């Protein structure tokens, strides 16, 4: 029984980590009023770049850096289209997803061919990792997992206690009002989009190198959209986003658990489970919302 619980919770955290990571980035950009539906594509690109970097330089750390840099660049390009040119955010985001689908396949076949690379090694915390159950579930992970959970209170602090956080929240609500007090709306939105791109890139790298350590085509499989859902379900607030991520991770872990039981034969339905739970949760909780008033609208200075 203890094994069962440990396995379930470990699987939960493993799935939840990339969701939370990407969603923490999205909290910032969504709060600043940008809907980045291209997260899926950025994560997929990050997954590929992570493996590529690790393959080329033989270090998962280099892979992570490459994924973060690639994600940041995509965030910058997204900002250029949606903030400077004021293109429709949804359309650009979908463009990113379609682009990433083809781009990653091409690069993979050219350079990687799904090669096995060195993934993120586990880094057990001394002493704490020896605790029964808790030690395995909480303190026996690769570095990115610890960083992800440390980023939760940090994000909260930045958003609510710092000058930058106040500007981010204000820009999403009423960009014009920010303009009248001398805030540079464009610079602010570029900043959060690059940041959220970097987070999504890293989230993608964790998808490909957190467990399997190889890239398979289309492996992000909707996790970018789930990260968006986590962000909404978590009411655009870091701590709730973490809880939402763990909840969705549990749905995924439940899927794997059920696959090994007698109803495992209906695996198509079980595969739907996390997505189904996402939809139901969003329908139920969509109302209470910190969703910013200026969400999705490009700002035009007269």
């Amino acid at each position, binding site marked *: 029984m203890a094994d069962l619980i440990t396995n379930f919770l470990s699987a939960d955290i493993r799935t939840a980590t990339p969701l939370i990571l990407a969603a923490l980035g999205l909290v910032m950009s969504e709060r600043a009023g940008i809907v980045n539906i291209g997260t899926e594509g950025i994560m997929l690109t990050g997954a590929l770049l992570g493996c590529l970097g690790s393959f080329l330089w033989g270090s998962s750390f280099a892979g992570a850096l490459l994924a973060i840099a690639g994600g940041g660049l995509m965030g910058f390009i997204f900002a250029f289209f949606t903030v400077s040119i004021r293109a429709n955010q949804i359309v650009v985001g979908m463009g990113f997803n379609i682009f990433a689908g083809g781009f990653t396949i091409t690069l993979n076949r050219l350079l990687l061919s799904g090669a096995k690379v060195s993934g993120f090694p586990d880094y057990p915390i001394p002493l704490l990792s020896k605790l029964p159950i808790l030690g395995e579930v909480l303190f026996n992970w690769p570095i990115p997992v610890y960083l992800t959970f440390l980023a939760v209170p940090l994000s909260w602090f930045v958003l609510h206690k710092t000058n930058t956080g106040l500007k981010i929240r204000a820009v999403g609500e*009423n960009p014009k009002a920010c303009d009248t*007090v001398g805030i540079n709306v464009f610079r602010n939105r570029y900043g959060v989009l690059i940041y959220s791109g970097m987070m999504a890139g890293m989230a993608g790298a964790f998808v490909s190198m957190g467990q399997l350590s190889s890239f398979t085509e289309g492996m992000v499989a909707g996790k970018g959209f789930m990260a968006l859902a986590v962000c909404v379900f978590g009411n655009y607030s870091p701590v709730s986003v973490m809880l939402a991520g763990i909840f969705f991770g549990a749905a995924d872990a439940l899927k794997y658990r059920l696959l090994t039981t007698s109803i495992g034969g209906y695996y198509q339905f079980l595969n739907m489970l996390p997505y189904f739970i996402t939809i139901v949760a969003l329908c139920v909780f969509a109302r209470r919302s910190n969703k910013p008033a200026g969400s999705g609208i490009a700002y035009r200075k*007269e």
Partner: protein
Amino acid sequence: MAEYILEMKNITKRFASVVANEDVSLSIEKGEVHALLGENGAGKSTLMNCLYGMYDSYEGEIYFDNKLANIQGPKNAIDLGIGMVHQHFMLIPALTVIENVVLGLKDNKRVLDLVSAAEKFVQLGRKYNMEIDPWIKVEQLSVGQQQRLEILKALYRNAKLLILDEPTAVLTPGEVDGLFEMMATLTSEGHTVIFISHKLNEIMKICDSCTILRLGKVAATVAIKDIKNRQELAALMVGREVRLTTQKAPVKLFGEKLVVKSLSCNSDRGLPAVKDVSFKVRGGEILGICGVDGNGQSELVHCITGLRKVTGGQIFINNSEATNLNPRQILKLGVSHIPEDRHKYGMVGSMKIDENLSLISYKEALYSKNGLLKWKWIRSHSKEVCDDYNVKTPSVQEAANNLSGGNQQKFVVGRELERSPSVLIAVHPSRGLDIGATKYIQSQIIKQRDNGTAVMMVSTELDELIELSDRILVMYEGEVMGIVEQKDAKRETLGPLMAGIKE
């Protein structure tokens, strides 16, 4: 020689091909209240937005404190000591009061110290006798409080020159007096105020001098003490003599046409917006609905016109029950509706004039046959309506958006009145219009009344209500505070009612 805090020299501002300000020069003395007067679209706000750095570019020079100022953005303007309270407040409702105050301050530390900022803010509020709790969210403040917050926000940034863009439009008469007292305090301390308005009596009351803009140019700069009466100011503003009073025949009543019995409904947020409201409007009279914006007037109108669900009470139109009917059924009962926001409810801006005309009546025999529109007739009829109601448009094929605000409103009024309604609901019929268009639309409403239509008119302009209405119903927080006959209606009697005070 007077000491000027601000001199704007030969300012020209173009938007694409339109010239909003042309060669405007303006000098403001230190410590005065200087009015900027002009009709809608005369370029008052544009000029001030240039000064505040809201636009990318302008031509001309601005001197502040006798030094040439290079204003690239609001940041520069704030640093110089210019504060602006925009007509539409630049506050963020989801943030707290103090967060709004410190937002964007250049001496903010990385980690905000809101506690000491709040202390400074409270002291400032105490000094000017307008304390606001710094820790509540702005969405919980009344409109009057929000305005005070905007002023404090500017003072917190050490503004020496305060620009108030139509500040009294959203206030009760009592709050207006409070604002004027505050302005007096500020100028006595050496602050300077630019007061943008088109309300002549306010300018006569509190301003020292006045610059009048007409069609983007300076028409005149005058000292208020040299002006005899508001008639004189009005003539300067419009460029010709205007009659400020409207002629009206005595009331001739025809039966009760609109009856509302203990009506209740909720706001968009699900809170009670209209509470147990009852009144009757008879044919041949104008019932004015008076109150500060947001006290249930809009919701009341929406209930009567079928745009909102009635949660309690009944509505009768021409003696048949109209509670919770849909808008088409209500229109069929003989109701015409001049909506509060012509862009949102009155017309489809991107559609042509003739298309907009047929939106209401497209099902009628004259307009269509077997589901096909009779364009030939619709076009000639649109032409008639435009001619009858003085709508200036190159053709009826013009997109409604391309008309000026006044012509759009005249078109909406024309479309609604040509259906010869027995009940007319007119909401802010003259909002955003110049004096000429306002007087025209008012005269058309009076004509309807004289023909026996029951008119219900919602407005926030007290002068307009007092002048036109036969009776005035005052609403406060969704309740009827009282119904006043025209002969008893004065600012002094209506003001307290609007603020929710009953003797």
